[in-house]
């Protein structure tokens, strides 16, 4: 342990301290102690990140909309999450009289459970993963599909037309976008030949000169990354795909009948899901915990993961402040007529990339294979729609 250079010791500080604690625990309790020591940090760090994100999001959106955002609690309003937490804990828990009591109670729990389970396979740093499963990516998507059921349970058990509408929209949207989400990751699995998230990161943590060997720097990787992020935005019900909970039309969608701490649990589940899918995107396309330049490897790996995650959160907030909400038919048409063909084409492109000789021609062919169909698809969709200047009946 003492032979490690300082940078590596800092990098492995959590792994080493866990090993040190494990040395003091009697053997029969070691499996359970190991599990608790691995899981507890995730249960602390990511909800804390959620708390910070809520205030960052409100401040960021406020800045984009020329207002202050929260600025009363604590310095610059940064203690707002504590006030929000106390408020949601002390609020009355209202359950509608006609609601299905058991299902209404179970839905937020299932949502948060599924969101937390997804973190089991995310490598947060070097040697820092809860479970290195040989089918890790598949596990992630299997757990992600449980969210749909939770959303449906919440919407249906509330016995309110708004919540049912929101749940139906959410389920339809999540099922439609799950297909491009899963298909866009296949290119990475083709490149590495494994479903294990740890092995995928290890395959990318190499350098060509000073540049990293990340999959986002290949034509198929870049296209897959963009498609994955669009689908991930839709999966996490965020703007511009936030019509399941559109505040201006169906108030809050499937969790309209929830109050107090259960409402907070829905928010927690949604943000945790967003972080988890961002984490998977980082793992698959952006090299996980590896540094972006070979000269920066002295910075601990978990810090790189956190920095990348924060960049993703900033991008999500930026997108939310920028794009207007889509309509239901636009959403579905986009999923089935643009996303699906592009993901299938991307898989073909990845195959071409692997079979061609390693030279500049490979780059040109693979970029052309993606760019030209993308343009043609766009033109075709635009012509079908016959876009024209919109006339407003009442606003003019």
């Amino acid at each position, binding site marked *: 342990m003492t032979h490690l250079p300082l940078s590596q010791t800092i990098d492995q500080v959590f792994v080493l301290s866990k090993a040190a604690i494990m040395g003091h625990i009697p053997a029969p309790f070691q499996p359970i102690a190991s599990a608790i020591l691995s899981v507890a940090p995730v249960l602390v760090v990511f909800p804390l990140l959620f708390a910070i994100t809520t205030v960052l999001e409100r401040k960021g959106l406020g800045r984009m909309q020329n207002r202050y955002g929260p600025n009363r609690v604590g310095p610059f309003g940064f203690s707002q999450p504590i006030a929000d937490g106390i408020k949601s804990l002390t609020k009355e828990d209202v359950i509608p009289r006609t609601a*299905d009591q058991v299902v209404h109670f179970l839905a937020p729990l299932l949502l948060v459970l599924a969101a937390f389970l997804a973190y089991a396979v995310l490598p947060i740093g070097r040697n820092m993963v809860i479970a290195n499963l*040989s089918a890790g990516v598949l*596990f992630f998507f299997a757990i992600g599909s449980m969210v749909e*059921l939770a959303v449906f*349970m919440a919407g*249906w058990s509330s*016995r309110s037309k708004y919540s049912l509408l929101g749940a139906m929209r959410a389920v339809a949207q999540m099922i439609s976008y799950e297909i491009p989400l899963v298909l866009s990751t296949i290119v990475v699995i083709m490149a590495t030949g494994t479903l294990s998230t740890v092995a995928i990161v290890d395959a990318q943590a190499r350098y060509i000169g000073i540049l990293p060997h990340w999959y986002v720097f290949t034509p198929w990787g870049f296209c897959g990354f963009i498609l994955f992020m669009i689908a991930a935005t839709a999966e996490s019900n965020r703007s511009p795909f936030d019509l399941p909970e559109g505040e201006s039309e169906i108030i809050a969608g499937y969790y309209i009948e929830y109050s107090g701490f259960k409402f907070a649990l829905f928010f927690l589940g949604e943000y945790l899901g967003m972080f988890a899918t961002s984490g998977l995107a980082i793992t698959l396309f952006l090299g996980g915990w590896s540094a972006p330049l070979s000269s920066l490897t002295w910075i601990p790996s978990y810090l790189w993961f956190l920095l990348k995650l924060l960049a993703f959160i900033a991008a999500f907030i930026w997108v939310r402040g920028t794009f207007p909400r889509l309509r239901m038919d636009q959403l579905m048409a986009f999923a089935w007529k643009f996303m699906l063909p592009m993901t299938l084409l991307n898989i073909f492109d990845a195959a071409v990339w692997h079979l061609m000789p390693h030279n500049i021609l490979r780059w040109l062919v693979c970029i052309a294979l993606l760019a030209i169909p993308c343009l043609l698809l766009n033109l075709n969709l635009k012509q079908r729609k016959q876009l024209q200047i919109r006339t407003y009946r009442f606003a003019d």
Partner: protein
Amino acid sequence: MHAIFFILAALTITGASAAMCLRNLIHCVLALTLGFVGLALLYLFLGAQFVSFTQILVYVGAVAILAVFAIMMTRSAGPHPQPALSSFWITGCITALATFAVLAWAIIHSNIITPTPAQPAVSTNQIGDALMHSFALPLEIMGLLLTAALIGAVIIAMPQNRSSK
């Protein structure tokens, strides 16, 4: 080890029997989902990671949602008053007992060979290799079949007046 098996088996059987007994159809589907999850955990317990995750992905993520949608599309959301026993419960009981008797007889009278179970270490890689090499043709045929079914579904769902355009 046995304790885990019995917990998982109890979970699966509870889910499956609740799916039969509950009065509200949506509750039945949710209970059935519990049974699916129990089965997936049993697969995991047996070391079949790939099958287990696929079970959750397909049955919890798709089949349960499909069933729920089918129920919601075909009948109103409220509970329907129905008698606890259907009118032909005697016939049902006799059929079930007869089936059980035949199966039990077959199992008892078969010569059971208890092989020493060699731990089959099937990894996800091996499943992928098998699907892509030795079972490539069946996989392609399945894909073709599913595509045909998908096109059929789209044609059924398409509005009728499209052809007049």
